[in-house]
């Protein structure tokens, strides 16, 4: 399998603080990679670096053959191939669920309105929200909003989906519905997924690889069940003792 995302010796600093130290990572097409780690470990920055919401400070990032920083002018192309789901959903508040999902195909992929609406309807049905297409985000629950956000990210037909703590802002009873949607995407579509989460159950069930980050470095990685069963470092042992199991 060719790798669709490659990080070579990537560093990222905010001012004087370096949050990613020489990260090397290669993700293959179709892989589901789960990243865990304590807050401030750099996992969100790593994720946001992949679609250039954060620009890497040094090293090289290759996404779908596009090299950053060499090809900085092609960032939009990277983003068309790399969708993102945010912790706070970030649905456009002035658009209905359908408009939110149809927006990407329509504006980023230049599709006709009817065609974009068809895609949006199919995706809303897929995430179980067909009957909510005319609701505004403010009229939906957190779990429903996040499912719309997943549909929105899928609508531009990306090769990779990034999830930045997609269930962390949700009430406990809504976490399941969002994880179910994510699981079905992983199983049905063979989508490459990079997921920052604390949901260890999800990692064990659908993850092909688990990465533990601490202090801006990848400390351990491997098959999720093995990494969880036999943590090598004290830091991971300590961390696993603190996360909840679903």
């Amino acid at each position, binding site marked *: 399998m060719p790798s669709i995302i490659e990080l070579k010796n990537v560093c990222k600093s905010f001012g004087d603080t370096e949050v990613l130290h020489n990260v090397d990572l290669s993700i293959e097409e179709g892989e589901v990679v789960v990243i865990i780690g304590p807050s401030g470990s750099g996992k969100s920055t790593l994720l946001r670096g992949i679609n250039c919401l954060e620009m890497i400070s040094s090293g090289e990032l290759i996404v779908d053959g596009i090299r950053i920083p060499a090809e900085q002018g092609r960032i939009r192309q990277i983003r068309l191939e790399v969708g993102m789901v945010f912790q706070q959903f970030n649905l456009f508040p002035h658009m209905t669920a359908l408009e939110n999902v149809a*927006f990407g195909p329509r*504006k980023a992929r230049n599709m006709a309105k009817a065609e974009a609406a068809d895609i949006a309807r199919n995706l809303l049905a897929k995430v179980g929200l067909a009957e909510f297409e005319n609701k505004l985000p403010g009229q939906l629950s957190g779990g429903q909003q996040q499912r719309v956000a997943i549909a929105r990210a899928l609508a531009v037909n990306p090769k990779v989906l990034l999830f930045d703590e997609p269930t962390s802002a949700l009430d406990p009873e809504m976490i399941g519905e969002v994880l179910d949607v994510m699981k079905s995407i992983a199983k049905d579509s063979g989508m490459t997924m990079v997921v920052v989460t604390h949901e260890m159950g999800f990692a064990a069930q659908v993850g092909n690889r688990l990465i533990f980050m601490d202090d801006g470095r990848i400390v351990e990685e491997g098959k999720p069940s093995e990494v969880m069963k036999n943590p090598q470092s004290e830091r991971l042992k300590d961390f696993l003792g603190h996360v909840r199991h679903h």
Partner: protein
Amino acid sequence: MDFEFSVIVESLPALLAGAKLTWIITILGIVGGMIFGILAGLGRIAGTEALGEKPHGIFMSISVLIRYISSAYVETVRGTPIIVQAMFLYFAFPMLVKAVTDIERFRIEALTAAVITIIVNAGAYIAEIVRGSVVSVNKGLLEAGMSLGISRFQLIVHIIGPIAFRRMIPPLGNQFIISLKDTSLFIVIGVGELTRQGQEIMASNFRALEIWLAVAVIYLIMTTVLSMSLRHLERRMKIF
């Protein structure tokens, strides 16, 4: 003290002609002021993260230049009284033109000067309203837009614009009403707007009570129309 209602009735045609002029100056002024305000408001935050990604190289330099020009405009206009701006434009500007060019008979019509003054003056205040509203748009929404792979132009037109515009409506209502009332200052350059009409009628019949009461009520009606239309717009654009 005697109050003659007939005085009001008699002077009403002249007052309404003044009101019509006031209305025309106001509408042209706020339409032009919106254009100036949006350009200068966006100009003041050009090249910052409030409008998506920071540009690179030459584009960043251009952004900084635009930022300086916009700020100079806003600060100059906010820092000087509107009456001075009107008199400068009407009396001083033609002399300036004569001094630096060969144009001998350069003149600005009083009405034109009035409209330009409102456009330039309201534009500076609207620029600050635009800037404040755009900056207040949640950064997460910009990131969501960018992560879909849309252009900066699309981001501004489809995401930042509509969300910021809803927040602008209440302060815009304020500014529109202020601009309408500011037209009364053009009495100093001889524009026959409502206040000037009232002044002229009063000077001939000395019925201060009737005339100024009528003038005040007509202003109140016009400002009420403005604020009610904005209220209506605000309700229509409500987000849950």
